[in-house]
């Protein structure tokens, strides 16, 4: 909490609780948990200052397995509970673990309001595009026409694009990673932590029971080089097995072009994490046939944080009115004495 504290050296084991992990064998959540426990010793945060808050769903069991402070709460409300934790003690490192149902359906309201307030809270949204815990209904990120138990003739609603939604809500840090890309996952966790303000990290996570292979084209060796656009700040948006494809702006419209006779690397759009327009354009490639899925940090800017401003107001009011006690307020106003 304070500067004076001696930072301890931790190992993965220090962040592993004594509780048996109860996800289905083969679930993508295992990888995310493992990478989190692996990278946390390097964050430089004392264990007692870490808090994991979750809602309801498969992903929301996460806090039980982390040997930090944790609170497994109710469906959709983790961002609001985490806000209370952070406002009560802004020195804590607060993490929200949620899913596509928890964070975007029942709790969508809290997610967007957390993002606009920009509290320094890290959101890990496990997106498996399905409801796992309730056994396989479609989710708000399921592709249209999804056949599930509750939609035998196919789902009718258009999916949410989590990153577009986050950008629209005023997020200051928006990223995406994949459960199977362990190194990248670690890197995104580290960057989320380093960001001052709400960090929104979507993690593509495979539900091998109810939506197996939802992201296989992004993870299979044969296809992934053509389907994933790995984002590097200030680097051209190039992808493909031969690294010969890129994103080029044709007027205001992004297009996929081949680098060769017609276009050179210089024609390819440079990624800029601080550019909102580029971030929007990238986020909208998802669910958009013909485009690769962008993975990495789409957007990262510095902005004022709610908790800092709240504390500033308290300091300002105290300076202006002087440190008072409730007795001063009780005694104030028109009073009279009965003898």
């Amino acid at each position, binding site marked *: *909490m304070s500067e004076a504290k001696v930072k301890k050296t931790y190992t993965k084991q220090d962040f592993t*609780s*004594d*509780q048996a992990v109860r996800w289905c064998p083969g679930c993508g959540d295992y990888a995310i948990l493992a990478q989190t426990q692996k990278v946390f010793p390097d964050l430089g945060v*004392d*264990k*007692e*200052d*870490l*808090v*994991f808050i979750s809602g309801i769903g498969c992903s929301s069991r996460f*806090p*039980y397995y*982390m040997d*930090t*402070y*944790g*609170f*497994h*709460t*109710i469906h959709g*409300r983790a961002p*609001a*509970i*985490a*806000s*209370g*934790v952070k*406002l*009560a*003690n802004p*020195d*804590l490192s607060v993490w929200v673990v949620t899913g596509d149902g928890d964070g975007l359906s029942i709790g969508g*309201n*809290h997610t967007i*309001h957390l993002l606009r307030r920009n509290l320094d809270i890290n959101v890990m949204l496990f997106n498996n595009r399905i409801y796992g815990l309730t056994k396989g209904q479609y989710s708000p990120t399921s592709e249209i026409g999804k056949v599930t138990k509750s939609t035998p003739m196919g789902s009718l609603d258009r999916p949410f694009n989590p990153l577009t939604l986050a950008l629209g809500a005023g997020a200051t840090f928006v990223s995406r990673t994949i459960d199977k890309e362990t190194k990248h996952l670690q890197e995104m966790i580290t960057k989320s932590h380093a960001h001052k303000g709400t960090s929104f990290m979507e993690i593509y996570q495979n539900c091998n029971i109810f939506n197996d292979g939802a992201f296989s084209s992004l993870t299979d060796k044969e296809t992934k080089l053509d389907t994933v656009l790995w984002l590097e700040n200030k680097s051209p948006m190039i992808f493909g097995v031969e690294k010969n494809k890129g994103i080029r702006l044709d007027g205001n419209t992004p297009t996929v072009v081949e680098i060769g006779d017609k276009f050179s690397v210089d024609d390819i759009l440079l990624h800029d994490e601080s550019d909102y327009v580029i971030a929007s354009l990238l986020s909208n490639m998802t669910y958009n046939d013909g485009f690769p899925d962008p993975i990495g940090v789409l957007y990262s800017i510095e902005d004022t944080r709610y908790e800092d401003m*709240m504390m500033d*107001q*308290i300091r*300002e*009011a*105290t300076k*202006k*009115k*002087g*440190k*008072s*006690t*409730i*007795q001063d*307020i*009780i*005694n104030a*106003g*028109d*009073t*009279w*004495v*009965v*003898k």
Partner: protein
Amino acid sequence: MSKTTKQVDEVVIRFAGDSGDGMQLTGGRFTETTAIVGNDLSTLPDFPAEIRAPAGSLAGVSAFQIKFSSRDIHTPGDAPDILVAMNPAALKAHQKEILPGGTIICNTNAFTPKNLKLAGYETNPLEDKTLDDHYTVYSVEMSKMVALACEDLGLTPKLVDRTKNFFALGLLFWIYDRPTQPTKDWLAIKFSKKPELVEANVRAMDAGYNYGETTEIFTTRYTVDKASLPPGTYRNVVGNYALSMGLAAAAEKSKLNLFYGGYPITPASDILHTLSAWKHLGIKTFQAEDEIAGITSVLGAAFTGSLGVTATSGPGISLKGESMGLAVMAELPLVIINVQRGGPSTGLPTKTEQSDLLQAMYGRNGEAPMPVLASSTPGDCFYAAYEACRIAIKYMTPVMLLTDGYLANGSEPWQVPNIDDLESIDVKFADKSSVVDGQFMPYLRDKKTLARPWAIPGMKDLEHRIGGIEKEDVTGNVNYEPDNHHYMVKTRAKKVESIADELGKSEIFGNKNGDLLILSWGGTRGACRSAVEALRAKKKKVSHLHIRWINPLPKDLGEILIKFKNVLMPEINSGQLSKIIRAEFLVDVKGLNLVRGKPISSADIQQAANSLIG
């Protein structure tokens, strides 16, 4: 001509006008001044939910009633002695409640054909003599007189006309012999940036005062002696404000940070407003995105060691139900305030009701017992809020505090407490004593209170996980075993029940046995006490018992009930607490259930009592 002065014991005045006529402000100023004069008083604001209903319409009538007295009084009065009606709609809406022989003062200038039509009058009641048989009517050209008083100020006629409420106030100040200076001082501060408005309102008030003094219309002034209240320093206090002070006092005494999360809702919003203005006390307020975030942010703050409080009204409580269940499960201290209003659904947002008691008791899924208490007067909101915080912290439990629209907006003289005299609130955070084999045990309970240890993020070696899934006793680990669940259900209930041990003996007003016991809870206390006083004055064997704690109920309640031949329970609902008491004690409680969006009157209660015991 000579003016006579008459001494009276108590007076009930009702100010009524259009929503835009400033009736709440007028009533508020009359109240503050009456407090300074030293009368006991009680007030009842009554305003529409619409911010500005069409001008002149019945729907737009806003009223403020004050009763003041040289004696100790308990209610804002039943029927007014004097009605100030600023327009025909105000007269129409309130006329039938004036005491026969009462007085009506009208702003004649507002009795235009258009306004008369809007109010549904076919002829002008000020001219057709229909009122004269029953009331003394004073037709005063208030609008005209404020226009004359302010004519050289260069203000628009519209602005000048808005000062007419101060004319009425000045006139009433004269009639009841009250000083105008405190209101002049108040105006100077209120409109410090608009001196022309200070001047206009002062002139309007003086014009009203002088009108009483100089015209021959008003021949009698009334004086009301100071009330003989217990010695001490007093101030006037409004319920929601008293409640906010109680919360802040609890935070200070417990040395916890107060974290308030909430969403605006009538009639609870003033708690949010009040606490938000006290940042210099270190209070954190958070206007959340909805009712659910209001309580869940508080739950997060409580998990992190703050004194967490949220306030709302019935519809908000419905939304907060699941979160309260989590607070019961997580055993975290939390105070939830329900400023009850008329329901169901949106119901009557600005009117009072006591109809959320069963919701407070049982409105959560599963067996989710929660301590519930109710405040009984505007000033008592302070002590009830303090008590709610103290119990929440001591027993590590969410506590529901019930108030209502009448208590929240009503006011009364309040003896200023010294917070050193309040019962202490000792917070003992968890320490190594709750660590077994290197592992913190979040459900290793205190043997006496059954409270679990409170370890908060930032505390070294006490890291732990809690949640809404059933927990194993002691370790707090997820546990689905049948016997453990049964034990935890019983233990959570026992914890709440055990609070009764510290509540002490019930105080009966009157004899310990007799023909009738009148039972009250919440805001009906005053009306019940007044009724019992009146009945006892007529030698009836009637006593009064007020119940502060609904859950747990007082331990001695059963023994008290059986000593009376009849038990009557007035409630502004269809009999919610009487249902519980009948079930608990198998006593045939009779209800007086009037659900009209306004307080039950002492007269109603006396009538019900008389019909029971003759």
